[in-house]
């Protein structure tokens, strides 16, 4: 009996100090990550807000401006042009990504043998860098050495090489194609995860009731995928709104600043003109817009389904 009681007694006696010690231990475990985040994320975030209220050159003294940077932002026609361009880009790139991602997800969700290999292949462009893939496409699209023009010429679809990246509309088309190639696998996997979460019984029941494949797709699968679509859409739209690499590398913002995205404009102000305060104000502006966009999208696609 004594042998059984002793550990319990000891544990009971030590309970208060033990739980306190565990409290301290837990706090110590998370402390490094917390300190790191405070120093490298919270502090810079607050500093962005503080800098946005100043004229802040790279060298020399910052001077307080109040809300003047924000007034300048509202009057900055390039800022609005960049936002509008970024919006156009987002509107153009999102539908092909989602239509293709959905079709690819349907394909790789089938029970065919070896379908996993296709899933892997479609996903490969996702794991290479956007900067690197943009460079790759610069070469593919080149009017002299690019293979794309070579193929189109050999097929007889074009009579002379197309100079893709110097015309705004052609450049937009080319960049959209390159980004769909690069990112569609990501949305495909998210949609696939959503599809696999739909219980088989629902399909079987519908099949018994005589619903065709397309009817099952339209009336059962799509409604049930709402929340997955919402997540994938938010991630994709935010990604498009933050576009920089592809335009910096593929068009360098040209011709005549016509392909300057919002982040590109922030980059130019902060790191080309060294108007750091103004760049900070633009950053805050972009943050607010992104926040509103996410809320809007989640509201539109809010999901109340349970199964």
């Amino acid at each position: 009996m004594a042998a059984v009681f002793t550990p319990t007694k000891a544990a009971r006696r030590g309970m208060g100090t033990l739980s306190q010690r565990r409290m301290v231990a837990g706090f110590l475990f998370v402390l490094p990550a917390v300190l790191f985040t405070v120093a490298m994320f919270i502090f810079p975030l607050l500093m962005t807000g503080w800098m946005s209220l100043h004229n802040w050159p790279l060298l020399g003294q910052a001077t307080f401006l109040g809300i003047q940077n924000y007034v300048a932002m509202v009057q900055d026609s390039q800022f609005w042009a960049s936002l509008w361009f970024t919006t156009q880009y987002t509107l153009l790139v999102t539908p092909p990504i989602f239509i293709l991602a959905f079709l690819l997800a349907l394909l790789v969700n089938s029970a065919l043998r070896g379908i996993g290999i296709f899933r892997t292949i479609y996903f490969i462009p996702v794991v290479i860098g956007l900067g690197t893939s943009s460079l790759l496409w610069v070469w593919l699209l080149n009017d002299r050495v690019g293979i794309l023009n070579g193929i189109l010429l050999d097929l007889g679809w074009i009579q002379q090489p197309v100079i893709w990246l110097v015309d705004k509309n052609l450049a937009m088309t080319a960049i959209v194609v390159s980004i769909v190639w690069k990112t569609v696998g990501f949305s495909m996997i998210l949609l696939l995860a959503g599809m696999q979460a739909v219980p088989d019984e629902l399909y079987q029941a519908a099949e018994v009731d005589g619903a065709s494949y397309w009817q099952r797709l339209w009336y059962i699968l799509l409604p049930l995928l709402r929340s997955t679509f919402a997540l994938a859409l938010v991630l994709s739209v935010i990604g498009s709104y933050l576009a920089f690499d592809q335009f910096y590398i593929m068009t360098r913002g040209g011709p005549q600043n016509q392909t300057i995205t919002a982040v590109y404009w922030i980059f130019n102000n902060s790191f080309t003109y060294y108007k750091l305060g103004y760049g900070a104000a633009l950053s805050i502006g972009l943050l607010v817009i992104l926040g509103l966009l996410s809320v809007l999208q989640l509201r539109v696609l809010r999901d109340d389904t349970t199964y």
Partner: protein
Amino acid sequence: MYVVGIVLAVLFLFPIFWSTLTSLKSPAEASAVPPTYLPSVLTFENYVKLNQYGAGIARYIFNSAGVALITVLGTVVLSTLAGYGFSRFRFPASNLLFLMLLAALMIPFQSILTPLFLLMSAVKLQNSLIGLALVYITFQLPFGVFMMRNTFDVVPREIEEAALLDGCSTWQMLTRVMLVLVRPGIITVAVYAFLNSWNEFLAALILMTQEVNFTLPILLTSVRSGYYGAIDWGALQAGITVTILPCIVLFLFLQRYYMQGLMGGAVKG
């Protein structure tokens, strides 16, 4: 259906395959107008030419690998400690701190690059591999902590209770018992940290202004923009191959862990 699948697979692989193939052509053939489809000879001359840029390709591979390694180590250590803390211990403000760590998921890092640049300059970590890695760790931490907390959450408590009865200390519990059990989570976090660090462009462009400290994507952009004279397309394809090959190999080997990270985020997020 197989036909559709195969046609699509060819389209998806085509750009990468073509780039790699071109990197193995002779330099003259790689820049030929119009381009040739298949190389007439296979040679590594473009790689030799790539090595003549700046400080040599070895230096840039070292830079990219160094930053990626520090990022992986830092992210894994901080995320594992924090994930363990958040999963197994109750302490004041734990939920608040957890939310604070996750907040960085919702704030794009592009919006705080300017102060980060000033911060790094102030502590003399601009143009430093460590400085760039610190920035990358910051933006890997939210995912890392989230992933590790979830991984620790599914380890049965009975295992710990048994170890506690054996007289295991809290620290020993983590290092001797838990680490083995949460290894899949650690690999997932490490894979993401590596790929995101290796591939990142904007922060590296801003922080690494001295040529000798460039990471691979920044070096390639310089090669492409004619910074070193006329664009050498063969060398560029060699550079692209060197940059994307490690990513693809890593992904093919650790695909399961990569997908787990994506699914975990999709289901829980």
